[in-house]
């Protein structure tokens, strides 16, 4: 059983990895800083490890999907990220792709359930 659990866990990690970018982009319509985004995702039950998220934000910025700005008006300086124009486009495309993907998968999985019920 142990090996099945291991296998399932690693497959789940792979599944989730594909959704990371989409989840992050979806939450950056308004500027967020690293930890506020961690909390926001946690609240919506889509938690991402802080150690994964912080580097991911920078990578997305490098790919010009996000733009960033240091806010030094507060007592503590924070780096805020928000979707860029390119990021918005990419987000819309990814979103529709995800929807069709999840519909396709839904059909496949439903089919399987129907068979089981036969």
């Amino acid at each position, binding site marked *: 059983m142990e090996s099945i659990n291991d296998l399932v866990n690693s497959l789940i990690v792979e599944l989730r990895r594909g959704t990371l970018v989409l989840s992050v982009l979806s939450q950056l319509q308004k500027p967020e*800083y*690293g*930890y*506020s985004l*961690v909390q926001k995702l946690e609240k919506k039950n889509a938690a991402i*490890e*802080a*150690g*994964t998220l*912080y*580097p*991911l934000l*920078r*990578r997305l910025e490098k790919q010009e999907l996000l733009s960033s700005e240091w806010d030094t008006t507060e007592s*503590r*300086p*924070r*780096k805020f990220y928000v979707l860029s124009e390119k990021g918005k486009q990419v987000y819309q495309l990814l979103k529709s792709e995800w929807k069709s993907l999840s519909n396709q998968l839904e059909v496949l999985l439903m089919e399987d359930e129907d068979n089981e019920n036969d």
Partner: protein
Amino acid sequence: MKMIDLYVYSATRHLPEDAREDIARELESNITDMLPEDATEEDVREVLEKLGDPANLAAEYSGKKKYLVGPDLYDSYISVLKLVTGLVAIVLAFIALIGSIINPPLESGFPKAFVDVAVDMSVGVFQGVMQSIVWVTLIFAVLERVGVNEGKLPYVKKKWTVDELMDLQVKDKRKISRGETIFTMFFTMMFAALLITKPQMIGWYSVGGNDTIHIEPLLNVQRLQIYIPVMLMFVAVSLGILVWKYIAMHWNSALAAVNAVYNLGICILLYCMMQDTALFNGSFLSKVAELLKMPASQIMEQVNIQKTIFALIFIGFCIWDSISGFVKSKK
């Protein structure tokens, strides 16, 4: 707060300088955000452990390749590794064998001499194989990083189309035979190993008194030492080109250009070595003069003629090889 500083330092110290400071500042502010007001040491500990090993974080930030040779090059890597280590083992065993036949350790008696030769041979082969593993891996790690398989370099990899199947017949003209490459590799290694480890074996062989074989070396072994680093470099480049030929299997413009530059380089090296009179062993020349029954003054003249003929043939061959590379790549 010292713990946070250390964590940030250790996660960012290997990052490129231009990004390091900004990442450090951001990471520090993120960590501080994760802590409650009036954080205790225990809180800091918890947060840092949640973020995990700073080395992993650093790897995520840098986004660099975390492997030496990727899946695209892996098959070529393994096949070249087998080829090169195999050739090296054969070449070194062969050289050790010749060495012990010409210069047998007779004084130590039969069984012991046999063991000595076997041990010398195994040690030499083992060291050579280890060296070649290192070099092949290094070459492939470099190839991986310059992006041979990502279409970043021109001529190397294009998107596959059915046209390539149609081109097969045309491509045959550009083909570099693997057999030829292996053959050249074998002789390059053989020649390099001989010249670098046992230059005294290239010379005039004669049977002296009590049936011992006497060798009068062609080259001045001491003088040759100054050329060894350059020669090693040439051998490395040459093997690199051969490996490239072995993988690419067809001529292309980049390969032809590198090949031509290499040929030019080796001609220049040969010219320098030929001009260096101290490189040739004087006793070898007198030996030849003695055998040909020729006065010493004339022998120098003869040697110069021979040298010129050799150089011309060599340069001619290099020019032909360079041009044929270009011609084949254009077919």
